[in-house]
C-alpha cells in the first residue's frame, strides 16, 4: 500500500543547523558540515509566564513547528499536528527521579506537568491557539518513522493537511550514559493531500523490509544514528536534492525491526 502526499513546508534545527535555508547547502554537500552545539531559539510565541517554564524540548519543538508553518505559509491554528519524540524533557525527568530517590520527595507542580510526553504539544496549543487534534507519539529510535507514517496515514485517510513535529533532546547524566543522544535536533514538515501551487515535492511512502539508507557524510551519519529525530535526515536531504535537481529520489527511512519505510520524493516544479 502506497501513500501519496505533498510537502509544502520544511524546517530543521540541530547541531550546526540553525534553520532549513542554511541547512540545505550542507545536506547537498555544497558546504562543509562544521560541528557545533544546537542553539535553541527562545519561544517568542509563548506568553512570558509560560516561557519561563519550558525546557529544551519545548523550545525546539515550538521553533521547528513555527518554522515549518511559515515555510508552508500556513496558519498553525488550522493544522492537525502529529508530534513525535523519543524521550521528552530529559532534564525534567532527571530532576524528578533525583528528587524521588532523595529523602525529600517534594517535586514542583511545574516539573510534574512538564513530565508528560505531550508537554511540548500542550505548549504548542497554548502558543498557537490550535484546538485541532494532536497525536503524540513515541517509538524509541523509530520515532521519526512513526511520526511520518502517522502523518501520511492521516493526510490520506482524512484528506487533511497535517503538521509533523519530530524533536529530541538529550538526557543529562546519569541517564545520558544509559540512553546516549548526541544533541538536540528537530524537524518540521507540512503535508497536504492534494498538489497545490505551494507544493515543493511529492512524497510516496510504503512499508518495506529493505535496510535504511545512510547519510554519505560521516558526520551527518553520526547524527542520524545518535539522535532519533535525525533518522529523518535522509528525507530532508532528498527534499533538498529533488528541489535542486528536479530529479526523483528514492530512499529507505529507519522505523522498526523488520519494518522500514520506503520513500520516493518527486519534483513538483515545471510539470
Amino acid at each position, binding site marked *: *500500500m502506497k*501513500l501519496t502526499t505533498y510537502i509544502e513546508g520544511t524546517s530543521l534545527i540541530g547541531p550546526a543547523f540553525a534553520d532549513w535555508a542554511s541547512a540545505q547547502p550542507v545536506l547537498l554537500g555544497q558546504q562543509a558540515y562544521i560541528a557545533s552545539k544546537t542553539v535553541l531559539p527562545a519561544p517568542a510565541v509563548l506568553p512570558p509566564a509560560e516561557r519561563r517554564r519550558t525546557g529544551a524540548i519545548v523550545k525546539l519543538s515550538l521553533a521547528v513547528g513555527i518554522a515549518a508553518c511559515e515555510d508552508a505559509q500556513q496558519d498553525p491554528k488550522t493544522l492537525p499536528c502529529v508530534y513525535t519524540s*523519543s*524521550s*521528552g524533557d530529559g532534564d525534567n*525527568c532527571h530532576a*524528578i*527521579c533525583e*528528587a*524521588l*530517590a532523595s529523602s525529600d*520527595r517534594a*517535586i*514542583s*507542580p511545574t*516539573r*510534574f*506537568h*512538564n*513530565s*508528560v*510526553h*505531550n*508537554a511540548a*504539544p*500542550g*505548549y504548542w*496549543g*497554548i502558543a*498557537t*491557539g*490550535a*484546538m*485541532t*487534534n*494532536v*497525536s*503524540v*507519539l*513515541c*517509538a*524509541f529510535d*523509530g*520515532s521519526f518513522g*512513526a511520526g511520518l*507514517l*502517522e502523518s*501520511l*496515514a492521516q493526510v*490520506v*485517510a*482524512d484528506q487533511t493537511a497535517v503538521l509533523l513535529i519530530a524533536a529530541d533532546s538529550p538526557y543529562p547524566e*546519569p*541517564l545520558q550514559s*544509559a*540512553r546516549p543522544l548526541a544533541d538536540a535536533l528537530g524537524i518540521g514538515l507540512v503535508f497536504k493531500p492534494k498538489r497545490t501551487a505551494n507544493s515543493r515535492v511529492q512524497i510516496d511512502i510504503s*512499508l518495506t523490509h529493505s535496510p535504511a539508507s545512510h547519510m554519505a557524510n560521516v558526520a551527518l551519519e553520526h547524527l542520524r544514528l545518535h539522535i532519533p529525530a535525525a533518522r529523518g535526515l535522509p528525507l530532508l536531504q532528498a527534499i533538498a536534492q529533488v528541489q535542486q535537481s528536479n530529479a526523483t529520489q528514492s530512499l529507505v527511512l529507519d522505523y*522498526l525491526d*523488520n*519494518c522500514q519505510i520506503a520513500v520516493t520524493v518527486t519534483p513538483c516544479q515545471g510539470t
Partner: protein
Amino acid sequence: MNPLYLSSYTATSALGHGLAQTQDALKQSRSHLVPCAFDDVDLNTFIGKVKGVEEVSLPVHLSRFNCRNNQLAQLGLTQDGFEDAVRAAIARYGNQRVGVFLGTSTAGILQTELAYRRRDATSGALPPDFIYGTTHNTYSVADFTRSYFDLEGPAVVISSACSSSAKVFSTARRMLDAGLIDAAIVGGVDTLCLTTLYGFNSLQLISEQVCRPFDVNRNGISIGEAAAFALVERVPTDMNADAILLLGIGESSDAYHMSSPHPEGLGASMAMQFALDAAGLKPSDIDYINLHGTATQSNDAAEGKAVHQIFGSNTPCSSTKGATGHTLGAAGGLEAVISALALQNNFMPAGLNVNQLDPATPIQYLLKNQSAPVQYVLSNSFGFGGTNCSLIFGKVTKA
C-alpha cells in the same frame, strides 16, 4: 467515519482480571480503592492496585522488557482469550498487517525511579542491570507487545497523558482506512509509580479519601493502574448479534493550560460533538455516557458543563473512576471496555462514593446501577496539555 469492529477485548484493573471479574465488580457497586501501600510511598491517599502483577514472569527471550508496566501488559493480554484472538488475526492477515497502538503515560519509569536509589556512590552511574529502552522508554509497552506476538507491522505508543488510550483507536482507524494494516491491537497500560503519586500530590490533585467524582465536596483523584486491550478490524459481513462497533471518534485540544481544563469545557464539548458527527448520531441517540470524571474540582465542573451543553440533563452518565481509580494513560482503554460491557449487558454502572451530587452540574448522574436497553455509549477521556478524545461505541443489533 468507517466503523471499527472490536473482535476481542479485555480489561484488567483493580476491579479484577478480565471481563467477568470487571463486570461482577461493577454490578456490586463496590469501590476497589484501598489505602496506599505501594512501595514506600508516604502519602495519605487511596490507590487502585491490580492484584498479582509482581508474580507475572515475562517469557525468557523477552526478559529485557521486565518491569511492572510490561508485567501488567502481559497479565492483561492473557485474559479472556485475547491472546488467542490476536494469534488468529495474525494467521488470517499475516504478521506485517497487524498493528500495535498502545497508550501509556509513564510506561516503565518506575524502573528508573528504583535505579536512581542504586546509583554508584562515586560515579553517580545507574546500576548496570538497568535497561532504559525496553523499560523506561515510553514506547516499551508497544515494543513488548509487538515482540510478544512476533509482529512486523506498524507500532507506536500514543502518550498524551490521560487521553492516550482513547486516541489509539484514532491511529488504528486511520491506518486501517489508509490500507496499511488489516487489524490492530489497541489499548492502554499504565502502572503505579512514584512520579504520578508524588506528581499529582504536588498539584494538590490527589484525595486523602477514595475519589468522589461529581460529589460537591470532591477533592481529587485516586490513582489506579490497568491494562485494557481491544483487537480492532474492518467491519466484517458476518458478526455476532452482540458484536461491538466503534462508530465515532472526536478529538480536540484545549489550547488553554498545561494542567487545567478549559473552564467552560470548550475542548471537551468539541470532542463530543466531533464524535457524534463522525458517528452520524444525535445527542438524543446516546443511551449512556462514561464520563472522564476524575473527581478533581476543575475536571468535573468543566466536563459537566460540556455534557450539559450538548446532551442536556437527561442522558444517564457516570464516572467509573470511583471504582477503578484514575488509571491515567490506561483510562481511555479501560473505559472503552467498560462501555462495551455496558452495551453487551444493557447495564449502566453507578458512579460511586457520592454523598451529595454537585448541584452546579445539572446532568443525569447515575447513583445506582441501571439496567435498560443500551444501543450507543459515549466515553470521554481528557488529559493534561488539553488533549481531548471522545469515543462512541454501539451494538450491531437493536438493543
